[in-house]
């Protein structure tokens, strides 16, 4: 057996950095805090890679299955002998994979931020929050039990809130951070309810027991029905609600586009590569329960994922803010991952969808982080987010241009880049389930290619705009992460992913099916070519098309009025009919009783304060008459 106790340091190092930079950051120069954060993350990353090596290659497999290993464990809250909440490190293929993803992207973002945030106010605040986020995210993925996951889940939410609202002087950033926090909090309520139902029916929090195919979670709970569904199904649906909130699935996606108010590295790390996939990770973590005890919930996952994916892809085609396009693209890709999980079965070849989802999560982290960081470099150069104000940037930003192109090709699924392989697996999984789903997946792929290349051509080709100053390439410290991530976006797909991460831990071999791969590549190429025709040279085709689509285009441009619906529900219905009566009750009954008490106290004290006259002789008189009266009483009343 290999001792995995050191893995706890992967999680703890960012925490130490957070404390160090957060509390003592103003003692040293801004640059130093950035360097400390980056080097700390480098250590974490190195440890993660070492862990992955140890886990996948050194640790002996238990009958060619990757076992689940508890690297470190401590009992934190002992509720009963059976039910206790632990904090620890659980190593299994998906958590090890997530460790690599998170530490790598986080390290890249740290490195990039040294340059990007240069000269910003709150430089060390930024780095301390970034470390806090890394800590919470790592703690989330290595959670040994669902309660630990919930704790870190909330911590992730808090650090996301802090980072979106990083520019707290901007009203829009404050509003966006509040929105993100409230929406995800609302979703987390569902998560908590799900946890409570789950732990109540199974009597455990522990993931290993919960996900054991022969464990109590599979046997219990399926008998009790509520509204036609078993309690297990209900708990899984509630838990998925939490996951949907974090992963910006429809209809809880509204916070993600607004979250782009945060600094761009934050968008890259939190709102593209890591935090938003927490929902996918959550479903993957509980996948055996979904599959065996709650197939209905798994269908919900599939439908929500598929719908969110196409919904977001359509909106992405109409947006002009580059970060928003990327945000909707993220939502769409996560929808694909959810969709893949939803169609998956359990065990070896059956679990192709599961594997594909994790694979896509892995590759997506690289190219989406790359896209965001590239967008950051572009924004850094032209000081604008809007793609209409850009054009012809390929000459000014050669490295950014090249890496951005790689990322676009990768996400569009052009072989042999990483995105091709993972997306191919997803489509294959969809194809196994049904033809309609396969066509849906193809449509999404085509749309993805279209909007990504729309973005690419508008920014780097097209007519050269008039800029305030000539755009210049970002400093080395920003371009190096871009190049490293580009390497990931190119080569990550060549990993034999199915031999490491599968639904039941048993490796299997995958192969590219031509009848899946050829249409997928064709659709991607067509999407990209269309975008090239529309946007490479300035034409009026896009305007003509949008005009011919009329109302649909407008609806998509306004994000299908989801925000308006929410506003209508909250402002018109909840505020008027729920909150106002409560507010009235609070103001008049609760406050009224408190005010009444204070009013009475005040009145009585005004009346009796005359006794406190400051007149010594008055006091003495009262004292003496009192003493005389007492004496009288003692002598004549209390003697028998």
């Amino acid at each position: 057996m290999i001792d995995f106790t050191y893995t706890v340091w992967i999680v703890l190092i960012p925490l130490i950095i957070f404390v160090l930079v957060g509390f003592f950051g103003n003692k040293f120069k801004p640059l130093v805090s950035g360097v400390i954060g980056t080097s700390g993350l480098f250590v974490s990353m190195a440890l993660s890679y070492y862990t992955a090596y140890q886990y996948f290659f050194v640790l002996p497999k238990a009958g060619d299955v990757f076992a689940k290993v508890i690297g470190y464990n401590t009992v934190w809250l002992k509720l009963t002998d059976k039910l206790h909440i632990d904090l620890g490190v659980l190593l299994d293929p998906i958590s090890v994979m997530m460790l690599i993803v998170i530490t790598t992207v986080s390290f890249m973002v740290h490195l990039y931020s040294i340059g990007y945030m240069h000269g910003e106010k709150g430089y060390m605040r930024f780095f301390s929050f970034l470390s806090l986020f890394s800590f919470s995210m790592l703690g989330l993925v290595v959670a040994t039990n669902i309660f630990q996951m919930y704790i870190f889940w909330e911590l992730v939410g808090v650090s996301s809130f802090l980072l979106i609202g990083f520019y707290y002087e901007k009203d829009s950033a404050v509003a966006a951070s509040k929105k993100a926090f409230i929406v995800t909090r609302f979703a987390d309520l569902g998560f908590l309810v799900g946890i409570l139902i789950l732990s109540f029916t199974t009597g455990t929090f522990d993931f290993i027991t919960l996900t054991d195919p022969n464990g109590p979670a599979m046997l219990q709970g399926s008998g009790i029905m509520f509204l036609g569904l078993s309690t297990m199904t209900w708990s899984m649906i509630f838990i998925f609600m939490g996951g949907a909130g974090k992963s910006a699935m429809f209809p809880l996606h509204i916070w993600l586009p607004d979250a782009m108010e945060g600094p761009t590295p934050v968008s890259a790390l939190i709102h593209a590569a890591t935090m938003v996939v927490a929902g996918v990770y959550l479903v993957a973590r509980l996948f055996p329960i979904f599959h065996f005890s709650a197939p209905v919930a798994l269908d919900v996952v599939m439908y929500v994922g598929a719908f969110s994916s196409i919904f977001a892809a359509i909106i992405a085609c109409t947006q002009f803010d580059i970060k928003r396009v990327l945000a909707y693209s993220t939502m769409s890709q996560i929808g694909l991952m959810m969709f893949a999980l939803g169609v998956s079965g359990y065990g070896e070849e059956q679990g192709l969808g599961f594997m594909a989802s994790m694979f896509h999560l892995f590759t997506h982290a690289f190219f989406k982080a790359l896209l965001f960081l590239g967008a950051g470099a572009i924004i850094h150069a032209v000081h604008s987010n809007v793609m209409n104000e850009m054009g012809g940037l390929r000459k000014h930003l050669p490295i950014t241009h090249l890496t951005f192109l790689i990322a676009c090709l990768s996400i569009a699924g052009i072989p042999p880049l990483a995105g091709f392989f993972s997306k191919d697996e997803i489509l294959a999984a969809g194809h196994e389930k049904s033809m309609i789903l396969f066509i849906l997946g193809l449509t999404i792929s085509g749309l993805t290619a279209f909007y990504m290349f729309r973005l690419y051509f508008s920014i780097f080709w097209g007519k050269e705009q008039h800029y305030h100053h000539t755009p210049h390439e970002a400093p080395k410290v920003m371009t190096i992460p871009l190049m490293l991530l580009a390497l990931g976006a190119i080569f990550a797909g060549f990993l034999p992913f199915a031999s490491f991460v599968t639904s039941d831990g048993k490796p299997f071999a995958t192969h590219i099916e031509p009848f899946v791969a050829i249409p997928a590549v064709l659709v991607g190429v067509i999407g990209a070519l269309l975008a090239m025709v529309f946007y490479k040279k300035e034409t009026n085709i896009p305007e003509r098309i949008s005009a011919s689509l009329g109302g649909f285009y407008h609806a998509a441009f306004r994000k299908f009025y989801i925000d308006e619906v929410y506003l209508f529900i909250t402002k018109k219905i909840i505020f008027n009919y729920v909150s106002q009566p409560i507010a009235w009750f609070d103001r008049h009954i609760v406050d009224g009783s408190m005010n009444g008490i204070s009013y009475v106290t005040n009145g009585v004290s005004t009346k009796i304060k005359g006794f406190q006259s400051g007149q010594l002789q008055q006091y003495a008189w009262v004292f003496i008459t009192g003493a005389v009266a007492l004496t009288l009483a003692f002598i004549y009343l209390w003697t028998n």
Partner: protein
Amino acid sequence: MFDGVPLSWFLIVATIMFFVGIYGFLVRKNLITMLMSLELILNSVNINFVAFNKLLYPNHLEGMFFSIFIIAVAASEASVAIAIIINIYRRLVNIDVEKMEEMKY
């Protein structure tokens, strides 16, 4: 009975002196006159102690020692009180007890 003077006579004289002191303490405005009233009160208590001692327990000395200690306490009390009075006078330029009410409510 002490050569024709009963204990109660001493006590009555002391009582009268005590309550005259009380009356003075209650009506006098000047702090120094209040202090004098206080001396009367202490003195009357002394008389009580001494009379009890002599007429009830002639072989003991407790009452007398009490008186001695009370005199010592009275002396220290008077000195501190007068120091305070002088300090007050220095600040407020009068020593009228009715005007010292800055600390009320």
